[in-house]
């Protein structure tokens, strides 16, 4: 197992290297000039001299391979350079938003997992009863309603019924936990609902499949308590596909909540991503792509490790 984990960790190096090469050179192919956008983008009358000076300052006057080399040296030391737009360190720009995005993703995951597991299990156990129908309506609702729209409903409901809205600026949880939770619980609920629906339906269908397996019949024939049959034998196996979905959804939530962030006026990674793309802010895009790629790689690794924990038959050698 340890050997497997170490080998997977080592494999992340060429994976991330590949991502780095791709993102660096593909961005240079995309039309648009960050200096033009930066200096002329607020309507100014900018001299060619100022443009050249800015290009030099950003290191864009150097040959492409030199730029790539400089960036890779930085990446190796976790220095992603400075944002070409704001001129602040990329890590600073990202970390400013990552805390919020990560917290929303964690809270949404917790909401989803804690609701989805009992919901999916109950639906499967009471298949084709009114309980199952209610769960199916709730989950189909979650899949059909876009998160941002559900978020808008939440906000308007809070306004209409309580004439109240959550705080509009972010306070870290270690500074003021109440203000922090009061602000982030709503977006977490908005995205957690859809997330929960996906996971609950996955658990329901895979549990139904597992409940028909021979080993479940055997366990029941041996007289094992039904609760134990479900929790120890059926659910553990049924959770495997759900774990994959949870992993993928979690990673998506870290960087993909663009519209939901706008609805709740959150200063998150999703908005930063969109802004940096529209501004051709190469260094920031590179840093964020590397971050998201690293998240995907490590979350997938964690999912694989969890597979072994939940299903002892799976052993990586």
């Amino acid at each position: 197992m340890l050997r497997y984990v170490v080998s997977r960790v080592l494999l992340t190096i060429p994976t991330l290297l590949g991502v780095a090469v791709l993102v660096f050179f593909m961005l240079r192919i995309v039309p648009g000039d960050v200096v033009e956008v930066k200096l002329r983008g607020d309507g100014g009358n900018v001299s060619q001299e100022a443009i050249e000076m800015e290009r030099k300052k950003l290191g864009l006057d150097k040959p492409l391979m030199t730029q790539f080399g400089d960036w890779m040296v930085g990446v190796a030391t976790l220095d992603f350079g400075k944002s070409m737009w704001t001129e602040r360190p990329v890590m600073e720009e990202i970390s400013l938003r990552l805390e919020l995005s990560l917290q929303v993703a964690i809270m949404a995951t917790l909401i989803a997992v804690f609701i989805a597991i009992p919901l999916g299990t109950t639906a499967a156990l009471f298949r084709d009863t009114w309980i199952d129908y209610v769960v199916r309506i709730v989950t189909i609702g979650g899949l059909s309603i876009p998160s941002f729209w559900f978020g808008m409903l939440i906000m308007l409901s809070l306004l209409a019924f309580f004439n109240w809205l959550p705080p509009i600026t972010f306070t870290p949880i270690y500074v003021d936990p109440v203000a922090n939770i009061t602000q982030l619980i709503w977006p977490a609920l908005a995205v957690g609902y859809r997330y929960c629906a996906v996971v609950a339906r996955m658990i329901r269908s895979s549990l139904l499949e597992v409940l028909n397996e021979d080993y479940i019949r055997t366990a029941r024939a041996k007289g094992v308590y039904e609760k134990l049959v479900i929790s120890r034998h059926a659910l553990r196996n049924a959770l495997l596909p759900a774990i994959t979905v949870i992993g993928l959804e979690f990673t998506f939530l870290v960087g993909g909540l663009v519209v939901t962030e706008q609805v709740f006026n959150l200063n998150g990674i999703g908005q930063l991503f969109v802004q940096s793309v529209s501004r051709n802010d190469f260094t920031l895009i590179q840093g964020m792509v590397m971050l998201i790629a690293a998240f995907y790689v490590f979350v997938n690794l964690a999912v694989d490790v969890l597979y072994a924990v939940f299903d002892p038959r799976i052993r990586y050698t």
Partner: protein
Amino acid sequence: MKRLLGTLSLALAAVAFAASPASAQTPKRGGNLNFAISAETPHYDCHASDTYATLHFSSPFYSTLLRYNLPKFPQIEGDLAKSWTLSPDKKTYTFVLHDGVKFHDGTPFTSADIKATYERLRNPTGGAVSNRKATFSDIEAIETPNPTTVVFKLKAVNASMLDHFASPWNCVYSAKDLAADANAPRTKINGTGPFTFVEHVKGSHVAGKRNESYFKKGLPYLDSYRGIFTLQAAAMLNALQGGQVLAEFRGVSPAERDRMVAAMGDKLRVEESSWTLNLLVAFNIEKPPFNDVRVRKALLMAIDRWGGSQGLSRISTLRSVGGVIRPGSPLATPEAELVKLPGFSKDIKKSREEAKKLLKEAGQENLKFTLWNRNLAMPYTPAGIFLVDQWRQIGVEVEHKQSDTAPYLAALRSGNYEVAVDFSNLFNDDATLALSKYLSHKNNPLNLSRANDDVIDDLYEKQLREGDVAKRKGFIQALEKRLFEQAYQQPLLWWHRIVLTHKTVMGWKMSPSHNLGGDLAEVWLNQ
């Protein structure tokens, strides 16, 4: 009788209310104001910016030499200048400055700071950018005979110079800072304004606190403020309704106003004004077939501005039909004259027939092109859709391409477009400011049509040097006629400003420009 008494009571109540306006109440000191800023500035440098996003962010930290007296707009008053005189030949301005003023870092403010600021505005060096370089090109020399006197010597008489000195974009920077790094104001804030900088959390907010050594005694009233970036209108309106922000000082659409009035009732203050802002249609004359005046003119003649203003004013911030000067302002062309100009006829059927004829003559009956526009919902999107529809009615097929502001402006400035929805963002009704956009491209690279027209340049120069208002107005109207006959660019519609504030926000003054009145010095909270 009862009805009469009721009417009288209402009238008396109205008079009593009018006699005790918000500004007449005694201001209270203290409190924190949260207000919304619907865009985030990419940098802090007023000199290099044309967007309110920079001003709403930076204005509370800075002072200017002069400024507008908003209740008496367009009257000008001193800010850092205590008084000023103009020489008899109208070529020398002498300003006496307030003494005892300090920058936020403690450095004493002197005339040298004004000199350094205006040298940077008129002739930026060291990679600094000034969008006001052309505006101040008439300044020949800036002298500082003593620390509280600064003298501007002009090359020629300039009818607009005083207005330019009152521009909100001329934030006064420290000479010491500029000497160390000409570009320092892009990333560092050090002004003499009513508030000192606390923090800028990127993507979230800017915060300031009272400048205890502000040179205007007793001001500001607020302890602190927080400008919160709300990039989506819906989020801003929710925040306003929920009380997380108490104001948004740029402006909202009529539909947004109606929603908020319905939701908040008498807790909300609604102030309205015509706006020194217009959207215009610009043709890049370097891109065929827009090098043909017949094509450009046909496209302008197909637009039903009068009809459009009625529809668009209900759903967007667009409202008034006007020429190059804000309708209703002293130098504007009256409606009776305006309707005679191409593109402003009230007989749209006849006008469109003529437009079709012009396109046929130019061999462009099946004209197709791309219209560049900003991807801002209000009012750019409705304006773009309106134009596409208007041109469809003369058989022209248009692709409406909307883009983020920065790449949109960069594309327009580089000439990589055919036709665009542009904007003219003014801070006053002075003709020079409004007309400079139409100067030949060789003289003003911000002319998006990229046209070079000596007749326009000559008329611009004449109005600039003319002291007699009637004569000046004649030159302005001649320039406008030439511009529309050549159809390089033309205002589509002028905006209408609607500002919503909670009634607890006092002392803020409405004006026709969202670029003015951003220093918050006299704003207070009635809580």
